[in-house]
């Protein structure tokens, strides 16, 4: 085969790019790890395909899941993606901790490999773990909380998922074919300009983040519209559950914060592909513009990551304290204040760029202002616990650990907001410890609390408690051991992204952090075991009534698993915490007086097409396989335009009689269930119907 023909078809892809072969040619530990990781991806894909074939699951997977527009199924697919990426992200973190535990002696990973590890770890955890996880939860929960049939734009929802999957696929493919960027998750130029990094790595980063970022923008638009337009009659804005408020604020942030990232990514791409000079050293290029653009996305992004978790904590703390949420209006104001302020602080990510003290001081003070509504939120959650009846269920364990650990991260955040201190700890492991402090106890614990809390609503059975506790405590201990030492070494002057060091005073701290990584690994394994055990023992934790936690909001008034149409008739909302109020009044499970036909949107191939051809588009661009890029772009454009012209050709109609039959059957089952008090919350007798409990008002 001639060279020119090869490059026409495969672009710049060659045999040296195939990572999974490297260990055979260079059998040292570094390359064995690299190739081993590729083989895990390859074998994982093969085994999954084999199992699907063996159990004849391809057809149900396709018809019930991949082409579904049901917001709950799309949400579940987001979370499956998040959990897969979580596994990879955690394992990369563990390798980095192990490397630095041995870093005084050089460790076992090469500098280049280490750089790829911190770049993929950051990119994956932010864009392909946290974002899909919170998007998944929002998808599952919001339409149920506001009493809607589905989101405003179900096809767009599927498309967003497809685009997100494309980005994740590109990052996974980079493990098998070629290298990933070494420029960190922020990809600062000029280091990421082609003269310095000519390989495929930075291009993988650009297209993964840009394609997935488009999906996130569309998700933001979808949920802003859904929350503002699809609420059930009577659900005024101030009757929306607190999670929905946080989802609304998150969606607004997505709409306004993702475009700067897309623009920054495309401008970097223009530099790399078309010889532009936006961020180069010469011809007027300036990386300071990139830093500004990136963090105009990047700072609101951290609130995109944390606000949904705040929403989960609001629901979880109120539910497991057996109380109304304290200061609902205050929390709403605080949430929106955080969202608003988040756009005015981006400069604190580069106090060290040489602007004058006035500018730094203004942005420093603006940053500290965010601490006020955030602090108020924490106090409101504490006041929610005050005079409650607190059950230490798994989601509540996460919430309690979050409150204690999160304020420590708040303290270090205030420190970082001060330019004087930031000059010292910027770019050190102190900063790394700070944002892991916010993102693990904050975002990840929140997501895992939400996962545990809403799992029965989606699948109809509860997750196993024992393994849930093991996972939660492993996360808490692992987080504490792995990241508290990084505060110390950061203050001692240990830079981030550093493969090895010569200061022996760092070593004991890194050994402790390495032990933390072990606990985090245990936590990850426990989550897998929990899922297996929970599915195996699902008959013991059936959630027949749909309300296993004696919860307060509308989604718990539906059967578990929720039918595709969510509600048999549109609910009318008369109060905040509508379901709790109805239960108190004894009207928790009322049959509607009349039913009508329900119309649901038909399935769509949009998501699958976006996932397959989005990935192909990115892959073609990364490897300069121009025919593939153009072909994929054409397929995406033509299919979208065709869908727009044809409309939804297969809408589904569910006749009123069928809805009535299903709903009556469920009510029948609910009446057969014995309501349980909260003392039996963990017991197999908890079938999802809560008994009303009255406690005598004892004196303090």
């Amino acid at each position, binding site marked *: 085969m001639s060279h020119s023909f090869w490059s026409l078809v495969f672009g710049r892809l060659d045999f040296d790019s195939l990572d999974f072969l490297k260990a055979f040619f260079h059998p040292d530990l570094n390359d064995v790890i690299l190739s081993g990781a590729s083989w895990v991806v390859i074998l994982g894909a093969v085994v999954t395909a084999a199992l699907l074939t063996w159990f004849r699951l391809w057809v149900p997977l396709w018809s019930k899941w991949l082409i579904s527009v049901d917001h709950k199924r799309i949400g579940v697919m987001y979370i499956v993606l998040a959990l897969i990426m979580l596994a990879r992200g955690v394992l990369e973190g563990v390798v980095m901790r192990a490397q630095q535990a041995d870093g005084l002696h050089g460790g076992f990973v090469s500098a280049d490999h280490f*750089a790829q590890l911190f770049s993929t770890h950051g990119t994956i955890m932010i864009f392909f773990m946290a974002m899909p996880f919170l998007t998944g939860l929002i998808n599952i929960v919001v339409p149920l909380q506001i009493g809607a049939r589905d989101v405003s734009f179900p096809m767009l929802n599927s498309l967003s998922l497809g685009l997100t999957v494309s980005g994740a696929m590109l990052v996974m493919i980079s493990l098998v074919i070629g290298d990933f960027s070494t420029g*960190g998750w922020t990809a600062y*130029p000029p*280091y990421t300009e082609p*003269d*310095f990094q000519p390989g495929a790595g930075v291009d993988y980063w650009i297209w993964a983040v840009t394609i997935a970022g488009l999906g996130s923008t569309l998700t933001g638009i979808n949920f802003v519209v859904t929350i503002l337009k699809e609420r059930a009659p009577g659900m005024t804005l101030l009757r929306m559950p607190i999670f929905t408020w946080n989802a609304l604020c998150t969606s607004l942030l997505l709409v306004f914060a993702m475009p700067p990232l897309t623009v920054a990514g495309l401008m970097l791409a223009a530099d790399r592909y078309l010889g532009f000079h936006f961020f*180069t050293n*010469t*011809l007027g290029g300036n*990386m300071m513009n990139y830093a500004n653009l990136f963090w105009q996305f990047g700072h609101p992004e951290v609130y995109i990551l944390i606000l949904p978790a705040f929403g989960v904590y609001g629901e979880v703390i109120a539910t497991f304290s*057996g*109380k*109304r949420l*304290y*200061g*609902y*209006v*205050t929390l709403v104001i605080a949430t929106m204040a955080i969202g608003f302020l988040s756009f005015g602080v981006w400069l604190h990510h580069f106090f*060290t*760029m*040489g602007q004058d*003290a*006035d500018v*730094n001081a203004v942005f420093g003070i603006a940053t*500290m202002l965010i*601490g*006020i509504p955030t*602090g108020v939120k924490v*106090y409101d959650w504490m*006041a929610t616990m005050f*005079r*409650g*009846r*607190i059950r*230490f269920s798994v989601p509540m364990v996460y919430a*309690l650990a979050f*409150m*204690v650990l999160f304020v*420590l991260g*708040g*303290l270090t955040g*205030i*420190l970082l907001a*001060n*330019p*004087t201190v930031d*000059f*010292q700890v910027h*770019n050190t492991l102190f900063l790394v410890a700070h944002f892991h402090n916010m993102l693990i106890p904050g975002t990840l614990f929140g997501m895992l609390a939400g996962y545990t809390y809403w799992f029965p609503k989606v699948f109809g059975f509860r997750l196993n408690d024992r393994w849930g506790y093991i996972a939660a405590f492993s996360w808490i201990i692992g987080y504490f051991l792995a990241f508290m030492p990084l505060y*110390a070494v950061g*203050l001692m*002057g240990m*830079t981030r*992204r550093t493969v090895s060091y010569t*200061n022996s*005073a760092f070593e004991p701290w890194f050994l402790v952090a390495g032990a933390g990584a072990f606990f985090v690994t245990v936590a990850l394994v426990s989550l897998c075991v929990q899922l297996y055990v929970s599915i195996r023992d699902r008959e013991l934790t059936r959630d027949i009534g749909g309300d296993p936690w004696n919860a307060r909001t509308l989604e718990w008034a539906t059967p578990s698993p929720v039918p595709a149409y969510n509600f048999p008739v549109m609910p009318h909302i008369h109060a905040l915490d509508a379901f709790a109020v109805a239960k108190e009044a004894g009207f928790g499970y009322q049959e509607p007086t009349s039913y009508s036909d329900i119309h649901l949107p038909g399935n769509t191939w949009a998501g699958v097409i976006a996932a397959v051809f989005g990935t192909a588009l990115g892959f073609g661009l990364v490897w300069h396989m121009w025919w593939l890029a153009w072909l994929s772009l054409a397929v995406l454009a033509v299919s979208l335009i065709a869908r727009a012209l044809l409309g939804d050709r297969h809408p589904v109609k569910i006749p009123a009689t069928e809805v009535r039959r299903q709903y009556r059957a469920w009510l029948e089952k609910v009446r057969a269930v014995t309501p349980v008090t*909260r003392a039996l919350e963990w017991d197999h007798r908890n079938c999802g119907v809560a008994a009303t409990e009255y406690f*005598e*008002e*004892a004196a303090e």
Partner: protein
Amino acid sequence: MLTGCSDKSQSFLTPDGPVSALEHYHLWLITLITLIVVAPVVVGVPLLAWRYRYGNTRARYAPNWDFSTALEWPMWLVPVAIVAVLSVYLWIYTHELDPYRPIAADKPPLRVQVVGLDWKWLFIYPDYHIATVGELAFPQDRPVSMELTTDTVMQSFMIPALGGQIYAMPGMVTRLNLEADRTGEFEGMNTQYNGDGFHAQHFQAVAITPQDFDRWVKTVQHNGAALNPTSYGILARSSTPAEVHNQFGDAAMPKDITFFNDVASRLFAGIVMRYHGDRAVSPAEEPGTVAYNAKLASK
């Protein structure tokens, strides 16, 4: 506590100059003030959780209590007051510790021009026509006034024991003013990742007596390699301080440290201005690029 008992100072936890001392003070000041709002949470959450646990039927239960104006005031006002106080300190210290602000002293500052290269810093002493790699020597109790740029990707310069960091960027000049109030060795580094040799981009900042400094300058003037366009071209390729020493150093220079003399007075300005031409600097002429390193390797 954190730095052990090593004589060499690594961090601002044991500050050795006026800038780092004030940064260190500000760190603990903020921490103490912020603890006023943080400590109640750390202590209060476990106490509330235990007191109001499900099994404790003696504690009062108020399921419908969801607001209290009396509680709302301190919830908002205490954090507001804390942030107000912190803001005043922030404003004052941010201005006082502005890296661009000259340090008041009776002696004129020592001028140093810092050029970031992959994976080392080049320190040019324009008043003495010397330059060093791997070591930044200066007299104690005399301010050092630095101008920084890079001749490759962005870097960030820091000597933690003396003061905070500042970015160095190609085609641009940033400033940093530091001072050491004792003699000693202080670890210095780049904190901004710039490739495989990043972890090796460290140097010694050495504060010595004025007499020793004069002697040191003479040593470098007599004992250095000439820094001309050719040797700068080789110096600028991606290499660690140890590799630079192997290339240019001799037995008279300390380990991993290289001295240069005959430094042209326009060197720093030339490095900054070369990125401002109306034609692109070709990759083969741009240190840090793959093409630049390949060109030098082939020679």
